[in-house]
């Protein structure tokens, strides 16, 4: 890839990424903000591609666009009021301070790093190399992350699960215990707890 194509790709992708990231903050509608966030993620994936890191680029799309953004959209939809309004919060000052710190740190690292010593050529078969180093060199962090995710999974289930013996009123169980009779009008039936529907 010669210079023209690379520069074209780099500058347009950077413009997309930064512009979209800006719109995430500026946009008043929360769903619009998430859509711009997705665009920003895709721009970052494109930047990875210009660095010949195709594995990370694809994983970026798979995880951030395919999973995290979808979960964000889902969370917004399931929260009654949040779907409409990306309103003012009291977090403006801390966010500004944090942003300044991050920019300062990024600038510092960028100036201090000896970029000339970075290797220029692309690595073939990155997936294999990343997998091997995850299993050999970084096996402890990898396992810790796995345990953390499992704990999060179990915790989410424990929080969200309806315990049938814990006071949740199923029409069928009420019927069985004789608390209501089948003659009662059907609109008294709480239609909650349809299995598998709510997730």
């Amino acid at each position, binding site marked *: *890839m*010669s210079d023209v194509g690379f520069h074209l790709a780099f500058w347009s992708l950077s413009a997309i990424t930064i512009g979209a990231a800006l719109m995430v903050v500026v946009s008043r509608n929360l769903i619009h903000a998430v859509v711009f966030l997705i665009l920003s993620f895709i721009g970052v994936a494109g930047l990875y591609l210009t660095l010949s890191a195709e594995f990370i680029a694809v994983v970026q799309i798979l995880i951030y666009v*395919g999973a995290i953004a*979808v979960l964000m959209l889902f969370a917004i939809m399931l929260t009654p009021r949040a779907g409409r309004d990306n309103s003012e919060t009291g977090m403006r000052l801390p966010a500004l301070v944090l942003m300044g710190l991050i920019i300062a740190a990024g600038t510092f690292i960028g100036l201090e790093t000896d970029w000339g010593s970075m290797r220029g050529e692309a690595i073939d078969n990155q*997936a294999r190399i990343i997998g091997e180093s995850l299993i050999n060199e970084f096996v402890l962090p990898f396992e810790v992350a796995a345990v953390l995710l499992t704990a999060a999974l179990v915790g989410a289930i424990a929080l969200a699960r309806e315990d049938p013996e814990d006071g949740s009123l199923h029409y069928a169980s009420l019927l*069985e215990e004789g608390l209501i009779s*089948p003659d009662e009008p*059907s609109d008294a*039936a709480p239609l909650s707890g349809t299995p598998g529907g709510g997730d």
Partner: protein
Amino acid sequence: MIPLAKWYDLRDLSGLSEEITGWIGADWLASLVSGLLGALGVLAVVGPTLLILIWVERKVIARFQQRYGPNRVGPKGLVQPVADALKLVLKEELRPRAADKYLFLLPPVLIFLPALLIWGVVPFGPNMQVADLNVGVLYLLAVSSTGVIAIFIAGWSSNNKYALFGAMRVVAMSISYEVPMVLALLTVVFFTGTMSLNGIVEWQQSEDLFLVLMLPMTAFMFFFSATAELNRTPLDISEAESEIVAGYHTEYSGMRFGLFYAVELLNTLAISAFIATFFLGGWWLWGLDEWVPPWIILLAKTGGVYFIFIWTRGTLPRLRIDQMMHFCWKFLVPVGLVFLVAAAVERTLLLENNWDASIALPVFGIINAGLTVVAVVTWAKLSGTESQKLPSNAIMARGRVGGLRAAQAIRVDELGAEPVAGGGD
């Protein structure tokens, strides 16, 4: 493997592309042109195929349902899809006043992107692939997972409760069925030791077998999960017309709806091509690919898989969402994990012991087939018949909620007899 072709060799169209890019001096322009040529080639195959597929699908389903199907426009109704497309283009495109102004226009375009991008890694022949990525399998998953967002935006921006229901169902379904899909692909990757799609085809070629013979359950898992991801009929609760009008594209009319419809067919065709590639040997067919253009072999296999898709659509009833989720999380995911471990063990045994692959692989195939039978029988014993006998929460089957049972209960009431208590069987 075919030696690098002359440009006029129809068996390998990459020669033609190289001839054209050879005239161009600048390096970046050449790669741009070759990419454009690949995209044009894919479009040239996919576009007309789409028109024919609409006709094929309607005709075949009509035959399944003992009717004639389209038979008025053109010979045997062949021009019907063209007429339909023209009608859709000419129709007025409505936008509900309450819809989100900008986001409403986005999804029909947005959903088309992954549907076209996904063709980039389909290996039409040994050298005929727009991009032979090392991470082709991941690329497939990544690109296909972005389509959900378009559907979601469509459902939300319509400001219609049925559209929103459809969108939520799609997202719940896609997130769930992505797990068995990934597990199935991971099993394939474990077995072949590569994530490049061409590499998977070449593995099948070198071992002289189709992967579906080695991993029948995995092939079924991928097929079924793909059906869910594609919203096709056994699992199309996201646009179940008897429940929620048309799901996420309720408010779309004219060509905007047409794009949704086209993308559904396009994705089905792409997934058929991927199933053909992963499990049926792709462009390879026991040496026939030396004589017939490999891309014709792949298209023939794709057509075969597509027929199975139409078949399931024409013959199977729609599942309820809880049945779908139940099947996904309680059958496909555990069984997929079992097969993942089995594939890993078999692959390691093969590599560590230097066994003769021509003997070991058939043995492994028989073991996997046995595992498949065991898995299906166990699940049917443990879960299938149980849930049929004792519905855990059968609201609709009890009391006066609706249906025949409620009518019976009312009639018993009027006759003065005892109502049937807890009538659910």
